[in-house]
């Protein structure tokens, strides 16, 4: 398990730079609350990558300030009310643009490193 974790701090930093986009991606299909988003990211990578939940709260607030997500309190009666996040049209546009930017960057890096035959072709 541990050998699968990004051991190189560079790759973890690289991923951290995309936290906003990753969070927006988890909200594309359905509204989710904080722990659900954390779990979706963890499960999507089969546990290989995990964003510390504590750091997600700053991300949520930044996304909400920029109008990329909206939040609302759920109506759970038990175990505390959950704060749900909903992606906005602005959030969808930013998500699509960031994904397109990433694909371009990935292609360029693959070409420069001469590893493009290994990576998935767009």
């Amino acid at each position, binding site marked *: 398990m541990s050998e699968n974790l990004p051991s190189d701090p560079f790759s973890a930093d690289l991923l951290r730079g995309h936290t906003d986009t990753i969070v927006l991606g988890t909200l594309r299909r359905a509204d989710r*609350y*904080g*722990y*659900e988003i*954390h779990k979706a990211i963890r499960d999507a990578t089969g546990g290989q990558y995990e964003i*510390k*939940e*504590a*750091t997600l*709260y*700053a991300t949520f*607030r930044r996304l909400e*300030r*920029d*109008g*990329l997500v*909206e939040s609302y309190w759920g109506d*759970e009666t038990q*175990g*505390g*009310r*959950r*704060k749900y996040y*909903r*992606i*906005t*049209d*602005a*959030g*969808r*546009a*930013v998500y699509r643009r960031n994904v397109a930017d990433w694909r371009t960057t990935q292609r360029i890096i693959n070409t420069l490193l001469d590893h493009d035959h290994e990576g998935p072709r767009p």
Partner: protein
Amino acid sequence: MTSETPNVHRALDVAFDGVALTPEVQDLKEEIRANLLARVEELQAAGMAPDDAARAAIDEIGDLRAAVDEITEGRATRGAAADAGGAPSPAEAWAAHERLVALHRVRPNPAFVVRTVLLAAVLVGAVVALALLVAGVIDLPDGAAVAVAAAGALATGGVVADALRQETSSHYPMPAGRALAWGASAAAGVAALGLGALFAVDTGRAWPLAVGAVLAVAATAGLVTLGVTQTNRTKAWVREVAAVAPDRFSQDPVAAARFGLYSGALWLAALAAVVVVGVTVGWVWAWVPVLAALLVEMVLVARMLFRADAGR
């Protein structure tokens, strides 16, 4: 169940110890509490003992104190920066705003401009043709009149959907499905108006009124649904500018409420006047109260949204 909860709550209290409990901080605390409890519940469902589950959930979440400090300090520095700058002179503020606008400028796509001009021409042509038909200047067979109304409706839908799909300096493009739904609703509304015109030409036939009414209801239902579910499309830089320099209605909710009440009363009166004028003078002149109300509304906006002292 009862033995694990104090653990989670205590951990939260420790993390928030000494932090001023503003509504924002309270909100964050409750959000984290619900998420911690969700994780505890999940671990317990997997067979973990309550105490262990609480401890594991708290361990997993990471450095809460650092997160709390980051969020509250970020806010404090932003506020301080805004205060320290003081009020810039109008010229400086204007120059800064111009720089921001230039930095975020998105030029309109030439193909979009051409499409909009062409579709608007189609719409204007359809409106003129139907107006001449209602005024009795020209005569069109029903099929042709319906085709004209349909062309006007499709042109409107096209303009609306196309415009919403464009990225502008201040707004992100709308997802395609939503933009199409807005366009379709607007098209249904225009088609209903066109059929209304057809009915006005010869009130002896009921079908234009029936179809028009169905389209009008569909358009209203569509526009209301879309309006209620609409989320933010404004870019972050515009939101920041708006937060620094809010308009009068954001600063003064009482003025905003008063404006809403005036507008509501104005348009109700206009609607009643349309009916009265239509019945007494004739339906050809029923648009006059609408025009009058529009003029009054503009004066209302000018007087209430932009205060006389705003330019000083």
